[in-house]
């Protein structure tokens, strides 16, 4: 009871009042990655009964109890389990065999078939390698074969049998027992030890009913199939768990977490073509590319996942020089709502290839992306802090400086009450270039702190350590684009900052190479914007009161930074022609609207469907 209590990380404190072992408001944890089964060993009825009540396994020495003893004790165990409201199958039976026992295969098969034994442990001397080899190579497969023949089909399953207390935490409406066999082993339910680590995302608290964790493309397809049977529940698609607009966790629904598909492979060294699994994090991508002298612009935070960012845009520190992340995409493999796996590129499934770059989450689960990455030597990396008592004046000056700044430099600005923090990357390892491009920024306002270093792109992506995902509540975030920082935009922003309704006001610069691409080339259309604003607060109504005036001086939004689900926001994200085209494709690929966790595009009505 003490052990189980300490594993229960859903509580803040645990107590257990026993005669021999006690806990009093102890801190439970650490959270386990998987349930660690507790096996009891003993040949008397008291232990068998205790195992039946509490344990996950029971071990006994066959020599000590004999077959009859085993049968009796098994029965005691079964009764104790049923009396405790458990399924007798929750307790795995394990017997320890003497060395001679391994010779009689039919007796061993009988142990499995007649006595429900599912773990056989052979006692061998430390030098007895031959016995061990035969046991492994010949005896074990023969037992398996014999047992499979004798038992009804499917009776031997690797599907975990959950304890009654874990089953009690299941949520309604989910066919837990029908989770496909290949997903059952890695799936996480609310009663599982690993649930604490997967329930929430970086910024959002969640309580899903089932998290499926496929490890292969085929398993993703099977997970999508399972989700199709649960259209009545919310479905979240998760890669890195840094969604803001994307509800990659939910309450009582399903999550398909493709974090395990995180391979990074160079396909063509000369062409700098790299294949990246949707579950990789950008910090890992940066690390993998660095030895080649390459980088792929992503965002400002290395913990963000590839899947969510590369289906939406990717406004990063190299954007002005090298464009958005999606601008580097050459092909993407996706599992569609009907479970088929398709490849979309400039020559195959071209409409999907267009849609995947900006609205990908609506059309399927991306499993791998192929990017042409950039040659990026070490970069200049600056962190400057300013006194900014007049935010409007600071913003306007910032806007003017950016307009004259060459593409090599991509600054991100965080503006607060009285202070401005500027992070900027210069795609150059030449100190002269770095300093000359940063100097105008340094002159905007009195500097209070400055640090400029020459570092690999990967070092910037790995600046912050990985932290646990235990978001609580819902993020409140607003987004807007603007071509320039007009006096109206600046003064509305200053009011917003002074109001205290927002604790985070950040401008990422775009333009440059981002604007080299035609607006209709991808579902991300905001090519003419030079500034992407992201604002976060804690109270949506209060934030909106101050953000609406800013929005009036801006146009469009980057969906990844917008948490509002108002239908108007869809129109801000996608201009009419784009939205039309997306809706037609949605009607074709996901007519029942399975994928709706992120800026949901409703399928076009039937009469427009023929237009695709």
């Amino acid at each position, binding site marked *: 009871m*003490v052990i189980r209590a*300490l594993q229960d*990380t859903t509580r803040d404190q645990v107590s257990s009042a026993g005669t021999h*072992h*006690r*806990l*009093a*408001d*102890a*801190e*439970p*944890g*650490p959270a386990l990655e998987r349930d660690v089964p507790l096996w009891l060993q003993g040949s008397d009825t008291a232990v068998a009964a205790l195992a039946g009540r509490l344990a996950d396994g029971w071990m006994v020495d066959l020599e000590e109890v004999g077959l009859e003893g085993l049968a009796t004790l098994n029965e005691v165990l079964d009764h104790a389990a049923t009396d405790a409201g458990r399924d007798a199958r929750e307790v795995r039976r394990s017997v320890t065999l003497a060395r001679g026992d391994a010779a009689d295969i039919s007796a061993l098969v009988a142990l499995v078939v007649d006595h429900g034994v599912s773990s056989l442990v052979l006692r061998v001397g430390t030098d007895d390698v031959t016995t061990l080899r035969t046991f492994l190579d010949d005896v074990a497969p023969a037992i398996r074969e014999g047992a499979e023949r004798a038992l009804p089909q499917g009776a031997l399953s690797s599907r975990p049998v959950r304890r009654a207390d874990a089953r009690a935490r299941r949520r309604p409406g989910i066919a837990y027992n029908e989770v496909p066999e290949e997903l059952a082993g890695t799936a996480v339910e609310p009663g599982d030890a690993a649930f604490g680590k997967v329930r929430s995302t970086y910024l959002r608290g969640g309580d899903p009913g089932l998290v499926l964790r496929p490890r292969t493309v085929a398993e993703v397809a099977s997970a999508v199939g399972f989700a199709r049977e649960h259209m009545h529940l919310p479905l979240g698609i998760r890669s890195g768990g840094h969604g803001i607009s994307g509800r990659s966790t939910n309450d009582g629904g399903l999550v398909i977490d493709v974090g395990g598909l995180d391979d990074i492979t160079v396909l063509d060294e000369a062409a700098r073509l790299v294949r990246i699994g949707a579950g990789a994090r950008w910090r890992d991508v940066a690390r993998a590319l660095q030895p080649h002298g390459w980088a792929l612009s992503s965002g400002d935070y290395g913990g963000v996942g590839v899947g969510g960012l590369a289906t939406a845009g990717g406004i990063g520190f190299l954007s002005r020089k090298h464009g958005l992340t999606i601008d580097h995409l050459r092909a993407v493999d996706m599992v569609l709502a009907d479970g088929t796996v398709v490849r979309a590129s400039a020559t195959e499934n071209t409409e999907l290839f267009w849609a995947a770059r900006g609205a990908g989450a609506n059309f399927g689960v991306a499993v791998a992306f192929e990017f042409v990455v950039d040659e990026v030597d070490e970069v200049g990396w600056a962190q400057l802090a300013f006194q900014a008592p007049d935010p409007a004046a600071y913003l306007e000056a910032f806007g003017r400086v950016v307009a004259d700044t060459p593409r090599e430099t991509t600054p991100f600005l965080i503006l607060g009450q009285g202070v401005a923090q500027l992070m900027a990357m210069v795609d150059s390892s030449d100190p002269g270039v770095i300093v000359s491009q940063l100097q105008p920024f340094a002159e905007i306002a009195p500097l209070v702190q400055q640090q400029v270093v020459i570092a690999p792109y990967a070092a910037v992506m790995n600046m912050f*350590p*990985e*932290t*646990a995902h235990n978001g609580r509540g819902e993020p409140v975030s607003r987004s807007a684009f603007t071509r320039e920082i007009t006096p109206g935009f600046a003064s509305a922003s200053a009011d917003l900052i002074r109001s205290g309704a927002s604790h985070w006001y950040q401008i990422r610069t775009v333009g440059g190479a981002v604007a080299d691409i035609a607006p209709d080339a991808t579902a991300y259309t905001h090519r003419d914007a030079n500034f992407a604003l992201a604002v976060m607060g804690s109270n949506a109504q209060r934030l909106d009161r101050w953000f609406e005036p800013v929005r009036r001086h801006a146009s469009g939004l980057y969906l990844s930074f917008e948490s509002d689900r108002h239908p108007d926001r869809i129109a801000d994200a996608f201009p009419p022609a784009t939205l039309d085209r997306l809706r037609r494709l949605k009607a074709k690929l996901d007519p029942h609207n399975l994928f709706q966790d992120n800026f949901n595009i409703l399928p076009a009505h039937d009469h427009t469907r023929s237009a695709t």
Partner: protein
Amino acid sequence: MNTGTNSGTNTGASTDVTIDYGHDLLFGTFVTPTNHPVHQAVEQAVVADRAGLDLVTFQDHPYVARFHDTSTLLAYAAARTERIHLSANVTNLPLRPPAVLARAIATLDLLSGGRIELGIGAGAFWDGVAGMGGPRRGPGESIEALEEAIAIIRGVWNTGESGALSVRGQHYDVRGAKRGPAPAHPVGIWVGAYKPRILRLVGRAADGWLPSIQYLQKGLPELAEMNSHIDESAHAAGREPRDIRRFLNIGGQFAAQGRGFLQGPPSQWAEELAEVALTYGTSGFILASDDTALTQTFAAEVAPAVRELVADARGTGRHE
């Protein structure tokens, strides 16, 4: 990290009586046993090992869920490192039964080729200890228990003695326990201690003393006073003061300009630590560090410089 004691101001100008127990100097780190990211503490041990430090140590707070279990962490880190010695800093006795602890330490010392030391304390944070089902001990009781534990631990390790081990104490009652295994090397029992009564225990029974600078209420000069408790008690027990190695857990940051004790360039650190070594007989400096660069600079630039300064001073007969 630094405590802001006034110790920085009186280094260098000391006319006080100085002590030097003549030990070679040891340098190590004090790493947070955080379990997130899961391998961080182990990686920091590897960093310390590769940097050439003598010692890596971890706190032991078995009632804190965000920490690894320190005994398990020590085993894992020992397997990942090659030459560095490892120790808890310090083992929480009330949650670790001494006879089993002795065997665990011996096992790990054998497996690691003689690289394990036993930092141990009487216990603290009694709510946490009691919460986990451990005993709640008063100050006197906890020292008494520690003394019994040390007897048991030494008894288990002492395979030279024939016959079973019995230690009949107020807190631990060991009757007829089998002895052994003996560790691969003479494992040091280093006690974290501050008050006179436990300092006297250190003098009687321990191989090392392991205080942290931040708990010295009067700053570094307090070390002299504490040393004298240990020394007197050692003499009374028929031991030599130099039988007890004096460690010090320290904290600091490197900076271009000196801002205080261990807040400055490596050369400043070296002078300050050499001064501590020569004044208070401290011969083991354990730096709180979860930072690769901090650890590496400490190993590469501070440790050799302190050794040199101390050797020079000893060579010129600075200690008497």
